[in-house]
């Protein structure tokens, strides 16, 4: 290549492309390489950190369980006026029967019960009781069909009636012990048209048996619910003339007979299970919590509750969370403050002593830092309790009387002392790393220009150490807001943080929605404080290293 041919065109790289595109390609490759290098971390953080947090936060508003477990009931309740003072009509109770029947087969009714029990005490056992009894309600229909004709007793007959011939052949040929999957149920088209409710219910049943229970459909008798659906369908007297498939004669016979069948009064049957079913409040609660998303958990997290008339404060004797949020913030501030007071001189000494002594002192800072959190917390229990080392010493010195030993633990004092100790290294280390970079000559210069010790420190040294205080404070404050083990162990009842309630709701009460809402509020508070800190101190002033 000679330069004479290229005098007017754009600059070319060695391989003949323009220099510009060659450069951008190189940059792109570099970026890609950087991306690939961080890809494992990115993936790791996304999969193990961001996704679970997002999922957890989603739970704070998610409320699908009501509509999913009681689809027909919630549908029926959309037109019901809860304020009118009347319980829902018979049709709603029938929908409830169908929903609870399916739910108890899937074992979802107790979950729903626990969910609604957060809002109204007693719903939990209401659902559990009803789950046990719904089968009896449907058996009224089942028995009458079975008394009418033995045809209705057999699962084979049902399968022939409800499924297509092809599916039936496949199902009968299927070997339950073999490895092949059970042939999925296919509904017979004519029957679906004639008996829509029966077909729909049978499909739910077949799907449950085949997929959730993993049993052989050919061997399972239909649920009582299917008989109730058949009863309803036949009462409407569908036109059977065009149907000549399996069971047509029995269907015609049953259609003639259903008029004389004993009916089920679902409203009365549910009242029989528990009179609470005729309590308007139960229905209002189901209606209020029908939508797929709810603000209920968030309201609960700020001591409010959802009522038919909109949000309202909880009764005084149940208000807890706002108090805990405020306490958490105040105590974290106090802990941060005491860390600054204790850590600043230590950082200063570390930064100004000769390296040998400083290193020795540094080990004294780091040793507790490396010791297990639980060990240190338990050590404080031994130290601070009423028969503990500190109280014993004070009594021996005669500072306090033996019968009025100080209560240093199982209260706020205990939490503040133990957490200050545990978080102190997070203050000292950033302070040290900043102070280390402040040249001692500045102080000497200030003094030689006539400043007193205090002026030299306050006007010259201190402003330069502020970035260290900032970094330490942010670390300590944010860490302490989320602490829960130490407050749980030494905090008693007045020294616990909001995180203790979050942990309680996650592992003991299993109210994950409320825990998620409390966590979300805590997250927002921390981000808000971070923002405020950035506006006031400036996040650029934070230095974590030299």
């Amino acid at each position, binding site marked *: 290549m000679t330069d004479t041919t290229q005098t007017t065109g754009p600059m070319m790289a060695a391989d003949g492309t323009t220099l510009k595109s060659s450069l951008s390609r190189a940059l792109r490759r570099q970026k890609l390489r950087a991306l690939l290098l961080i890809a494992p971390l990115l993936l790791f953080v996304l999969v193990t950190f961001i996704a679970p947090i997002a999922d957890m936060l989603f739970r704070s508003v998610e409320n699908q369980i009501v509509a999913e477990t009681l689809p027909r009931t919630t549908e029926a309740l959309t037109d019901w006026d809860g304020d009118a003072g009347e319980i829902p009509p018979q049709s709603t109770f029938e929908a409830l029967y169908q929903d609870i029947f399916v739910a108890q087969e899937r*074992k979802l009714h107790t979950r729903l019960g626990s969910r609604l029990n957060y809002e109204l*005490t007693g719903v939990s*056992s209401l659902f559990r009781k009803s789950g046990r009894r719904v089968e009896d309600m449907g058996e009224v229909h089942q028995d009458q069909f079975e008394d009418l004709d033995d045809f209705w007793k057999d699962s084979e007959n049902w399968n022939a009636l409800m499924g297509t011939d092809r599916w039936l052949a496949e199902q009968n040929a299927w070997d339950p012990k073999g490895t092949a999957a059970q042939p999925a149920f296919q509904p017979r088209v004519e029957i679906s048209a004639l008996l829509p409710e029966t077909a729909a219910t049978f499909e739910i049943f077949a799907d449950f048996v085949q997929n959730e229970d993993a049993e052989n459909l050919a061997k399972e008798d239909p649920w009582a619910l299917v008989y109730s659906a058949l009863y309803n369908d036949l009462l409407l007297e569908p036109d059977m003339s065009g149907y000549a498939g399996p069971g047509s004669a029995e269907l015609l016979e049953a259609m003639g007979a259903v008029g004389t069948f004993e009916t089920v009064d679902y409203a009365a049957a549910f009242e029989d299970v528990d009179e609470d079913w005729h309590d308007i409040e139960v229905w209002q609660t189901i209606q209020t919590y029908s939508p797929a998303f709810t603000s209920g958990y968030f309201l609960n997290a700020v001591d409010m509750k959802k009522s038919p008339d909109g949000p309202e404060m909880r009764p005084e*004797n149940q208000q807890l969370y706002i108090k805990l949020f405020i306490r958490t913030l105040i105590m974290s501030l106090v802990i941060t403050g005491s860390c600054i007071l204790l850590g600043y001189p230590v950082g200063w000494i570390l930064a100004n002593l000769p390296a040998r002594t400083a290193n020795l002192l540094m080990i004294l800072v780091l040793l507790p830092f490396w010791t297990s959190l639980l060990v240190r917390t338990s050590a404080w229990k031994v130290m601070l309790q009423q*028969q503990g080392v500190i109280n014993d010493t004070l009594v021996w010195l005669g500072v306090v009387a033996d019968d009025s030993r100080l209560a240093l633990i199982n209260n706020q004092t205990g939490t503040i002392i133990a957490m200050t100790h545990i978080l102190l290294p997070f203050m000292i280390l950033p302070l040290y790393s900043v102070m280390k970079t402040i040249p001692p000559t500045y102080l000497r210069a200030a003094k030689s220009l006539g400043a007193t010790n205090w002026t030299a420190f306050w006007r010259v040294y201190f402003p330069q150490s502020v970035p260290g205080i900032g970094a330490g404070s942010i670390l300590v404050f944010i860490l302490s807001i989320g602490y829960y083990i130490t407050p749980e162990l030494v905090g008693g009842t007045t020294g616990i943080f909001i995180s203790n309630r979050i942990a309680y709701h996650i*592992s003991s*009460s299993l109210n994950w929605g409320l825990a998620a809402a409390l966590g979300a509020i805590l997250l927002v508070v921390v981000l808000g404080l971070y923002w405020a800190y950035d506006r006031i101190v400036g996040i650029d002033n934070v230095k974590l290293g030299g």
Partner: protein
Amino acid sequence: MKLTKTLLASTALTVVAGMTFADGHMANEMTIVSWGGAYSNSQQQAYHNPYSEKTGVKIINDESSAEAVAKLRAMNEAGNVTWDVVDVVAADAIRLCDEGLAMEIDFDEQLAPAPDGTSASDDFGDLLVSDCFIPQIVYSTTFGYRTDMVGDTPPTSVCAVFDTDAYPGKRALEKRPINNMEWALLCDGVAKDEVYDVLETDEGQQQALDKLATIKDDVIWWSAGADTPQLLADGEVVMGSTYNGRLFSVIEEQNQPVAMLWDAQVFDLDGWIIPAGLSDERKARALDYIYFATDTQRLADQAKWISYGPARASSAPLVGQHADLGIDMAPHMPTDPENAKNTFLYNYEFWADYRDDIDAKFQAWLAQ
């Protein structure tokens, strides 16, 4: 692009390794979850060791029973159940069973009959409180007191807890309403069989909290079973509630000046469940373990290491002596007639309904 290839390969490897690890189950291992401490030790001695010896199955202990319901629910939602057998209290077992998180057991088919041929369901009798729950032990939550701090009149009634004049000093109570509310009402003059009727009402709940308020300043609230024995041993409290096995250990094994109060102690059960959704192979192994570990002799063996009564009627006569101390264990059991004169039955149903509500009030009351 050698670097990229290496990176990709190592990422892939990490993911694969992670997945194998998460899957976790080598051919001949099972994870058994329990409460830890002396209790797990008694199970290790009485069940795990003989079972491993007999079958060669390696047993991995996990001490997460306190959070078993939450963790099983999470595992179930993630579709990856890593536990094989779990030790839980009856209330948790009922909840797990109701939610379909525990497998239903056919007691007579899947458990060993008593040596005299009595079927398992008759042998366990009333203790079979749920279709999924195989009771192992009966325990009581009761009070222990410092013998050297109560003067000449050691307490005989649970109401001594509320009597700060006769028994000055701190008391340890569990940091939750269950049991405390019942004791408060009992000592406020409510008859034993009416406690839960009273506690159903707002006034009754307030009455219990008011009674507790009379000693609020004297209470250290505990949340782990080991707290009270430690507080008693340190002389921090004059009396405190905890599980009777923990008190036995403080009194007999550690020789502390502590005595046990058998009055209105709350009687409860602890036992095994098998998580729902195990593979056939793991399910078969879990059932095999359960069959072995809950037979008459094995349940009686556990009482050699801890003072909890075996849940089988046929095991009671076989309860012998403490494995190390050589003392008779029968008089230390909550089921011993002498101890069981005035027990209080815990109402699962009531607390399933009222727990959220009363807990909110209790915690707000504590924070005041």
